[in-house]
């Protein structure tokens, strides 16, 4: 039933997308074949899909984890950026370290920075009651500025010196030094496919989150705090501590996403690598209904749509913005099983009424 509903939702979104394309004067068939070919039809397309999946999975998990504890983490964008910078900070120094030590250290630093950035709103909430929605939004802006500063090329105009991670050999460009080879995530398939082991980390994280939620005491407490704070207090759970810890791990997941992107794909940090991360996390968490498996599937779907967009535009001329509209439509249709149940309800109600009517006649 749930699968059928989801399938219907996807179909509905696609149909509306078709209508929209036709309205804009494009050929929907070309667009969709392009979309599918671009995301799954070729090795490159598949590679792009896979590459785009991991940040979706991780930020989605981050939002979902917080949501289970009754917290709304809009801060994945900032945590992602902090994770990126943390990973790069370690990744560009310590030349000569072996890979097995350097890479995990860099990843751990990325997670650590993300954790710290997530812990702040958690701690503020518990100690002062500051609403996490506000603090995470604000900390996103702060993280953008801070990480931008770390790689800033400097300017005499605002008399700002270059940031500590800035790559002085890159001219006026604001970007960090390249990550050393020993801290890069190895390829599964090298260029031109550029699939790296980050996807494995993301899937592992999904598994870990599932295990955390279903198999550990912390997960049990987290869910209790989220579902019924009073019951958690009654049961002697430390809900303040759980809140802080949950936000910490939520931040860590987003930080890991940042670390994976910098150590696996970009191999350096530049301010333009963080755009749009947070929102997709929220959408995917909602779409995956908070379940790690659902999140992985939702991430794959969204990654495929994103990966297919360039080819779609190339083949049919449909602007890639359409993809965002279609993604939104999918979100709406999946989120409104009520649309389906409402229809069913309508039908059963009329049946009921007619049954009553029939019995009255007898």
């Amino acid at each position, binding site marked *: 039933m749930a699968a059928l509903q989801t399938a219907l939702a996807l179909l509905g979104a696609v149909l509306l997308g078709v209508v929209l394309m036709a309205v804009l004067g494009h050929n929907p068939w070309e667009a969709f074949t392009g979309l599918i070919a671009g995301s799954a039809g070729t090795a490159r397309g598949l590679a792009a899909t896979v590459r785009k999946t991991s940040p979706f999975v991780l930020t989605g998990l981050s939002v979902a984890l917080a949501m289970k504890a009754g917290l709304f983490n809009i801060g994945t964008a900032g945590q992602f950026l902090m994770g990126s910078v943390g990973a790069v900070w370690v990744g560009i120094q310590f030349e000569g370290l072996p890979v097995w030590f350097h890479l995990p250290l860099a990843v751990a630093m990325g997670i650590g920075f993300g954790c710290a950035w997530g812990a702040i709103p958690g701690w503020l909430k518990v100690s002062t009651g500051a609403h996490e929605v506000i603090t995470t939004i604000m900390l996103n802006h702060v993280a953008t500025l801070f990480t*931008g500063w770390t*790689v800033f090329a400097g300017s005499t105009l*605002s008399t700002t010196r270059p940031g500590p991670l800035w790559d002085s050999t890159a001219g006026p460009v604001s970007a960090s030094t390249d990550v050393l080879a020993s801290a890069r995530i190895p390829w599964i398939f090298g260029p031109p496919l550029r699939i790296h082991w980050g996807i494995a980390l993301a899937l592992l994280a999904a598994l870990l989150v599932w295990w955390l939620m279903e198999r550990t005491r912390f997960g049990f407490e987290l869910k209790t705090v989220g579902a019924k704070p009073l019951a958690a207090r009654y049961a002697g759970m430390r809900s303040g501590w759980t809140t802080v810890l949950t936000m910490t791990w939520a931040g860590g997941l987003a930080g890991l996403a940042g670390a994976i992107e910098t150590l696996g794909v970009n191999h350096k940090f530049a301010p333009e690598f963080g755009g749009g991360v947070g929102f997709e996390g929220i959408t995917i968490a909602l779409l995956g209904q908070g379940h790690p498996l659902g999140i992985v599937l939702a991430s794959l779907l969204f990654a495929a749509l994103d990966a297919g967009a360039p080819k779609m535009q190339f083949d049919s001329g449909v602007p890639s913005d359409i993809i965002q509209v279609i993604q939104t439509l999918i979100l709406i249709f999946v989120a409104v099983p009520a649309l389906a149940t409402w229809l069913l309800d309508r039908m059963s109600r009329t049946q009921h009424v007619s049954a009553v009517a029939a019995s009255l006649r007898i």
Partner: protein
Amino acid sequence: ALPAMPVVNMDEPAIAPSFRVGLVTDIGRINDRSFNQSAWEGVLAAAETLGLTEGEGFKFIETTDPKDYADNLGQFINNGYDVIVSVGYVLGDATIEASLENPDIHFIGVDQFQVQSLPNLAGLVFREDQAGFLAGMLAAGLSRTGTIAAVLGADLIPPVVAFGEGFALGARYVNPEIEVMATYHPGDLSIAFNDPEWGAATARQALDQKADVVFGGGGNTGNGAIQEVATDPGAGTSVFCIGVDTDQWYTVPAVRPCLVSSAMELKTAGVDELIVVGPELQELLAVKAAFDEGTLETGYDQ
């Protein structure tokens, strides 16, 4: 990838119809009245010279997500395009990587400062500092209050910084005592060039602080700033504005009341020339191309 074809012989268009040019934009639209559009117009001009038709001979892809740069370039690479133009300095890395992987395809990186020199990659850079310098000189010359302002996009983008620094230096060159107020947009890259309200409010703040010439240097944020100046009662008589990137007399008509000039980069001409000339003169491309065309276009009346 298909091997690159030599340039079309105009007499025999049927023989080599497969010479194709592709363009990948930075985040934003092809008709953004800014750098993407300028570069695209260069492609259009070159296409006319070469007799190419849109769709068959040349195409563009608009980027919507920074993660897509490499994949968008890949679309053209997979389809055997001969020349690929990538617009915007943030595509630099993806372009270098693509040109290393595809030695047979020519790449033109607009606004891309290339440290390495590659035989099939031309980084088209401009002397924004020089254009900014001229704008600064003009501003200092116009100013009666001794205070001028620059409202700029993100300082993480080198051309923007170059414009700003040039502006300040040019102004001080003319009048060492002059006060130059310059602000960069505080937001992240996705909004720094798209926040005209901030630009307008900041320009107003500068005007209130006695600035009488405002240089708007940062996409729509800067446009917001000079539009605000244009609505000032003293626009064109006591307060003035200077545009950027394109001749904003045409691209942003709303600023005509105050506009005295625009600090331009001749991207269109640069792209055009590199496409047409490039494949014929391989050796020219072998050197790092620096198309230093910083100019100052003077506005029309007033």
